[in-house]
């Protein structure tokens, strides 16, 4: 499959509240469907927390099992506890069941409307209603089936977003859905490929600001970004058998995603092979690793082991949302983070210079470093990683 369903959410608790009243859950079904639910428990604190979690996990179970949406809605409505005072269900929700081909079933109950964004505008979701009589009241859920295309986003949030700022003279009625939509549209038109993580973070932070940084309710936003899978290739190390150089060059040329070349000799092999210039970027000066180089066709060209080892360190330890000093290693980290699937083409030639006893730093073997890097990318960053040795 060359499509990726990128899902992320961001949440803030109500000011001074220790537990979340909103709950967002996301799971992947064995058939690669993604199901996600945002539930908002009435009130705040522990009671809201238990109810929203209960609602969200029930919905997730239905959606994972691919139960008919209306049936799922009805079962939820029948089971949900009803507030004895207000005679409405304790928890509102938005639930999505997304197939890898983009077909998406939606189910909504009383949350701010689910937004569908494509090509710089919001699309109308044609919804059907399903009403069910419970013993105390009549509850109506909205459901729909839509087909996502590459580049589409689905955005859902709790009313902590739409009602942010409520009561302040500037925004007596809160932020309100139309203004939220305008804000989202502005963000995306400024940065058309903004990640689900950054978009949800931006929306929640803006809502918090409207509440003068003391959220009056839980604020949660979740974003689904349906897009082409981003692929990245890393070529590092000369091949064990120098006759394999043309193969490396060919792989480089045929790969359609972004490409990183790491290592001096390797870079020369590729540059010679494709007839490109290779130039060290003398403005990229940092103390611990050599500067990057520039070569046509490559997103990044770096020195080998020092850079790779620093990348491992960053991915393992640093808070990568707060990268400041951008050197070649950080550039590599950014490319990794921004991708879904990474293909390492690793040459097995041993660099004798690195075995020199006089070297002031310890240089392990390339293979070991790459394995370590691949494991971190798989386990900590959930990337799909393949390694080929030549």
């Amino acid at each position, binding site marked *: 499959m060359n499509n990726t369903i990128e899902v992320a959410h961001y949440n803030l608790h109500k000011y001074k509240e220790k537990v979340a009243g909103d709950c967002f859950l996301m799971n992947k079904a064995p058939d690669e469907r993604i199901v996600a639910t945002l539930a908002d428990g009435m009130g705040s604190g522990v009671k809201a927390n238990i109810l929203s979690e209960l609602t969200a996990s029930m919905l997730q179970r239905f959606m994972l099992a691919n139960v008919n949406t209306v049936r799922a809605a009805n079962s939820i409505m029948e089971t949900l506890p009803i507030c004895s005072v207000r005679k409405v269900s304790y928890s509102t929700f938005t639930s999505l069941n997304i197939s890898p081909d983009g077909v998406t079933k939606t189910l909504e109950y009383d949350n701010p409307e689910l937004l569908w964004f494509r090509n710089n505008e919001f699309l109308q979701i044609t919804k059907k209603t399903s009403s069910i009589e419970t013993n105390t009241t009549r509850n109506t859920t909205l459901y729909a089936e839509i087909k996502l295309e590459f580049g589409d986003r689905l955005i859902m949030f709790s009313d902590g977003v739409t009602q942010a700022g409520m009561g302040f003279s500037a925004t007596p009625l809160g932020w309100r859905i139309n203004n939220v939509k305008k804000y989202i549209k502005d963000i995306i038109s400024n940065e058309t490929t903004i990640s689900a993580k950054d978009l949800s973070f931006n929306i929640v932070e803006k809502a918090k600001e409207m509440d003068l940084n003391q959220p009056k309710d839980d604020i949660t936003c979740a974003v689904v970004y349906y897009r082409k899978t981003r692929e990245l290739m890393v070529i590092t190390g000369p091949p064990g058998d120098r006759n394999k150089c043309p193969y490396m060059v060919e792989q480089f040329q045929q790969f359609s995603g972004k490409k990183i070349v790491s290592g*001096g*000799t390797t*870079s*020369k092999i590729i540059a010679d092979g494709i007839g490109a210039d*290779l*130039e*060290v*970027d*003398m403005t990229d*000066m940092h*103390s611990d*690793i*050599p*500067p990057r*180089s520039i070569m046509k066709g490559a997103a990044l*060209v770096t*020195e*080998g*082991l*020092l850079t790779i080892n620093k990348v491992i360190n960053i991915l393992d330890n640093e808070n990568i949302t707060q990268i400041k000093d951008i050197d070649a290693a950080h550039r590599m980290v950014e490319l990794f983070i921004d991708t879904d699937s990474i293909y390492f083409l690793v040459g097995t030639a041993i*660099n*004798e*210079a*690195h*075995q*020199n006893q*006089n*070297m*002031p*730093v310890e*240089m392990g073997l390339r293979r070991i470093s790459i394995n370590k890097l691949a494991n971190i990318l798989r386990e900590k960053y959930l990337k799909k990683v393949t390694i080929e040795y030549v």
Partner: protein
Amino acid sequence: MKITVQICSGTACYVMGGAELLSISEHLTPDELEQVDIKGIMCLGLCENYNPNTPYVKIDDEIIKNVTIETLTERIRLAIKAKAEK
């Protein structure tokens, strides 16, 4: 034609002192800088076979080994002088 100074920024040279050499322009006068073209270069390919003579710099066609900031400054000045005498 300017004098080309290629400082090896490959792994072996970099860790053996090449990192410092990349800032050579700070040690030259504006006049001198006018006459040289300072570049980095990925591994010159001289560090193989346990060669203990890193870091390397290439000034035009001449390779110099075991370079320090002091020797590099000196070599660049000599090259400028030699060119002026030609």
